[in-house]
C-alpha cells in the first residue's frame, strides 16, 4: 500500500445523496431511507478505502441518516392526538431541495461559461482556457469504479512480495495510456490488475483530473464514461 496522498473531495454528502436518488430515480419526497442509508454507507466505506480526504460532514450525514432510519421505525401510535407527526425526513428533504436549486443554477452558469469561453475580445486581449478539471461528479466515477473492482482479481491471486505501483508511477502510467489512446480512452479500459492496482490507478486518474490534465465525460447516465486528455497532454 504505497499511496498516502489524500485527495480532497470538494463535493459533499448532499451531492452523494442526490446522486444516489437520481441514479435510481427515487422520489425525493419519499426517500426509502433504509436503502439509501445502506448505499450511502457503502460509498463512504469505499471512499475511505480509496484514502480520499473524506470530510467530517460525510460522517455527520451518516449519523443523521441512521437517526432518521430509526425514527421511521417508531410506532405510529405515538402520533399526538389531532396533530400530524412530522415526517423524520422532512428537514433532510428540505435541505436537499434547497441545495438542488443551487445545483441547477450552477448548471446554468456552467453553460454560460461554456458559451462565453468560445468568445474572444478584439485586439489580442483574449485567453482561452482549457476544459473543466472534472467533467463529471466524483460519485459517477466511484460508481464506475465499483464495477471495475467487482471484476478485479482478489489480492491472494497476485504474486506475493510484488510491490504495488506508487501513486507517482501510476500517474505517469495513466499519462502514457492517454497519450497512446490519442483521442479518448474508455474509463474501464484504464484498469487492469489487482484491487490495489485498480485503486491506485483510480487515484492517479483523480489527480490528473484535479490538475486539469484530463477530464471525463459521460454522455448520458449509465452510458460509457470517456477520459479525454486536455491540451496539456497533446
Amino acid at each position, binding site marked *: 500500500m504505497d499511496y498516502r496522498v489524500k485527495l480532497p473531495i470538494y463535493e459533499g454528502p448532499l451531492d452523494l445523496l442526490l446522486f444516489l436518488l437520481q441514479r435510481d430515480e427515487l422520489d425525493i419526497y419519499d426517500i426509502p431511507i433504509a436503502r439509501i442509508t445502506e448505499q450511502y454507507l457503502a460509498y463512504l466505506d469505499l471512499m475511505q478505502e480509496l484514502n480520499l480526504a473524506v470530510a467530517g460532514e460525510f460522517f455527520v450525514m451518516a449519523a443523521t441518516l441512521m437517526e432518521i432510519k430509526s425514527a421511521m421505525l417508531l410506532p405510529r401510535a405515538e402520533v399526538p392526538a389531532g396533530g400530524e407527526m412530522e415526517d423524520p425526513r422532512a428537514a433532510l428533504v428540505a435541505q436537499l431541495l434547497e441545495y438542488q436549486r443551487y445545483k441547477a443554477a*450552477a448548471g446554468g452558469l456552467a453553460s454560460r461559461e461554456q458559451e462565453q469561453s468560445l468568445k474572444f475580445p478584439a485586439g489580442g486581449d483574449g485567453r*482561452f482556457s482549457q476544459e473543466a478539471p472534472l467533467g463529471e461528479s466524483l460519485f459517477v466515477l466511484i460508481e464506475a469504479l465499483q464495477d471495475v473492482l467487482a471484476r478485479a482479481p482478489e489480492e491472494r491471486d497476485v504474486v506475493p512480495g510484488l510491490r504495488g505501483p506508487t501513486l507517482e508511477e501510476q500517474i505517469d502510467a495513466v499519462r502514457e495510456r492517454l497519450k497512446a489512446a490519442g483521442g479518448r480512452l474508455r474509463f474501464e479500459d484504464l484498469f487492469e490488475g489487482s484491487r490495489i492496482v485498480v485503486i491506485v490507478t483510480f487515484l492517479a486518474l483523480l489527480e490528473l483530473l484535479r490538475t486539469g490534465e484530463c477530464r471525463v465525460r459521460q454522455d448520458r447516465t449509465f452510458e460509457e464514461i470517456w477520459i479525454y486528455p486536455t491540451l496539456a497532454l497533446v
Partner: protein
Amino acid sequence: MDLPNAGAGVNGDDAERDLPLKNAVEAVLFVSPDPLPLKKLGRIVGASPDELKAVIAELRAEYEGRGVELAFVAGGYRFFSRPEYASWAKQVLPVEKAPRLSRAALETLAIVAYRQPVTRVQIEEIRGVNSDAVLKTLTDRKLVVTDGREDVPGRPFRYRTTKQFLHYFGLTGLNDLPPLEVSSEEE
C-alpha cells in the same frame, strides 16, 4: 487646428465633427480593453445615449452573420469573435493558466450570486460541506470578493460576486441571471 492626431481628445474639433459617429463608436469599442458602458462611451465620443443606441443598433446589424459580433456584457459593449469560430480563433491566443471552474466552484459561485452578500457559514449550510478551499479559489480568480463583515458573533466576512464574474459568464448584470428555480414544494 488641423492637427490630424489631435491628441488632446477634445470632441469638438472641426475635422472630427465631420467623421461619422458610427465609425468613432466602432473604433473606440474595437480598441477598448473592457466593455464600455453607454455613459462612458457617450462621454468619449460626445453623443447622447439615444444617438449611441441608434448607432449601436446599426453596427450590430452590420456585424450580423459575420465572424465578429458586438455584445453587451458586464454593463458595457464590446466586440467578440463569434463562438462558431472559436476553434480557429483560439489558435492565435495564449492558453489561460486557470482551468474552467469545477462543479464545486460553480455551485458555490451560484450560491454567492443569488444570495449575496453571504457568509461562508451560510454557503456551507446550503452545500453541506466545507467550502473554504473553494472560496479561496474563487477569490483568487477574482470572481468573488469579501464585502464587509456580517454583524453577528465572530463577524464573519460577507462575499459577493465581482464585475469579473459578470465578464466571465457574459452576463449583462446580476439581473441577467436566470431566476432561481422555485423549489418544487412551492409549485
